């Protein structure tokens, strides 16, 4: 659907509605039945996003912000401890010489333990990211 045709489908603009109301003011009407509820058709968030309304933009920005925050948290979880290690070794030279059983501590940490650790963080990230997306999908489909 092109943007023009979508706008047409939205019905009369606010200005047109106001004009219509003014025109109708002087007329008297005989009420013969309870007024039928005339409501704007219910729009889902999905349509809001598709039509780039302000509401749609807010929802999209919220999703992007959530995912960005999650991404940065994941990166921080991995990078901050790793980046702290050289500084620790540099400031406290004794740490570099620590032994963990037959191995130097750094070897145990950086040679072996780091790999399961980053895998665990990655797994957590995937779960959270998919959860965020599921929540968003539920929201936009108005279920």
């Amino acid at each position, binding site marked *: 659907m092109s943007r023009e045709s979508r706008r047409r489908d939205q019905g009369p603009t606010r200005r047109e509605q106001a004009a219509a109301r003014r025109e109708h003011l002087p007329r008297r009407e005989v009420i013969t039945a309870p007024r039928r509820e005339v409501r704007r058709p219910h729009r889902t968030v999905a349509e809001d996003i598709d039509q780039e309304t302000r509401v749609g933009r807010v929802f999209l920005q919220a999703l992007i912000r959530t995912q960005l925050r999650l*991404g940065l948290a994941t990166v921080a979880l991995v990078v901050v401890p790793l980046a702290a290690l050289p500084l620790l070794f540099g400031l406290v030279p004794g740490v570099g010489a620590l032994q963990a059983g037959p191995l130097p501590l750094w070897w145990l940490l950086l040679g072996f333990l780091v790999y399961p650790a980053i895998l665990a963080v990655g797994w957590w990230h995937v779960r959270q990211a998919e959860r965020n997306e*599921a929540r968003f999908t539920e929201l936009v489909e108005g279920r």
Partner: protein
Amino acid sequence: MSSGFGEQMAVLGLTLTVVITIVLAAYSSRVARTTGDFYVAARSVPAWWNASAISGEYLSAASFLGVAGLIMVGGADAVWFPVGYAVGYVLLLALVAAPLRRSGAYTLPDFCEARLRSSTVRLAASVLVVVIGWLYVVPQLQGAGLALEILLGTPVWVGGVLVAAIVLVVLVGGGMRSVTMVQGFQYWLKLVAMLVPGLLLLAAWQLDGRPSALTDSVPTFRAETTVAVEADVRVVVDRATAVRANGTIDGEAVSGAAMLPAGTVAIDAGTELTFPAGADVPHLEGIPARTGEAWARPLEGTEHPLYRTYALMLALFLGTMGLPHVLVRFYTNPDGRQARRTALIVIALVGLFYLVPSVHGMLGRLYVPELLMTGRTDAVVLLLPGALLGEGLPGQLVTALVCAGAAAAFLATATGLTVTVAGVLSQDLVGRVVPDPIRSFRWAAVVAVLVPLVLGLLAASLPLAQAVALAFTVAASTFCPLLLLGIWWPRLTDLGAAAGLVVGGGLAVGAIAASTLLTDLGGWPDALLSQPAAWAMPTALLTMVLVSRATQHRLHPGVSRIMVRLHTPESAQLHQTWTARGSR
């Protein structure tokens, strides 16, 4: 080392990989007729197989051979190389994988053009893909030359020419559509060829009484050892050592008993030296002779180690997301969700592989310390099985397996990069002259292989893993900020992106060129120029932000549509009218 032992086995291992590669390529290119077929078909590939293909393409000779060699020399500080190569995928997963797949872009230039609606940025990106690709391929070809020279005694150019020829046969023969299958296979081959020998070597080390590498002396020859010097070297001798020699030492012909004086000694190519058991290993000039304990302590052995460590971390962590041959593969995922899962599996596969090389690095100091003298430390993975398992059948079989893995490493990365570089060349450069897409791809493939081959023969060779880190540095300083801002910051403009790519790429490439040409800098200039990621990447990022802020009027109105496409899950059934050019 080129004499006798295991030569047939080495040839067998290498040949087997080459034959399997060509057969698989031919078979799967018959299944898929067109490029489109191939990528559509690839989408039915399960995530773990796609992840195998990515890992297969990623684990190059630098990982298979280079990492162990660097650890053998650099000890604690070199362990950051494998860690960085793996952690890069966490950043790729967290910030890039799903949005990039959802963009529908097939290559980085496609993404640039689609996100920024600018053919100028596209061109800049294409040039950078070629630069990064060639920086990455050159050490692969040089490494192949080194491996064949050490295993078979062939001249150093033979390996590179062979790899280049096989890559061309696979690509020009129509096998370009077959790469997923071949590379998935090559990952598992490399893993087995690393893991099995690693475990056997550990077992042999146990049986040998578990000698510790963390000694209080520099590495020594454990038994009487004959070292064949294959290129002119200058070595540093700590204590005068009595040897038997045959060749030229310090310009004088020697034959029989000789004395290596303390100090720097020049040894000519072709010289053979026999060291007695227990003698200290002379170290190549430039490789610091360190005791086992000093080797195992971090931040020793280089100038400004803290800066170098952080710059290396930054380059490797951020560079992975900008490697063009890796990103291409994410397109073969069916959707963003699968792209994320694929990245997660890659972290597992790559991490599993990197558990092993530090074992080789440690055992290398004990059992093949002569590599510290010849400088051929990249060969430690190839030579350890022979040294530790003996010259019997077990040692020969393991050597054959390792050779098969090494061949897979050269071929997988060289093929993947050549496909990517040739794709960009044919689309953006050759395609303007040769209209027929298949012929233009073939010409581009020839160019994409020949240029790095010639460069590799001309350029001095760095240790493999260090040379590959240069490609990561350029990627981190260019595509990394572009992707991060392009995906997460709607206000990035075409001018901002172009300025950042030019500044980041120019600084990184310029610094690398300067540090290779000006070899005797030393001190801070050397540290800053040889590890430029720490300042080039932030500069590029800042340039993109500042120039974009100054040129907000150039934002095109479709940006919000693109943001919808990049970030909303496919399950949300939104109108995803926008697709990147190049999606099929």
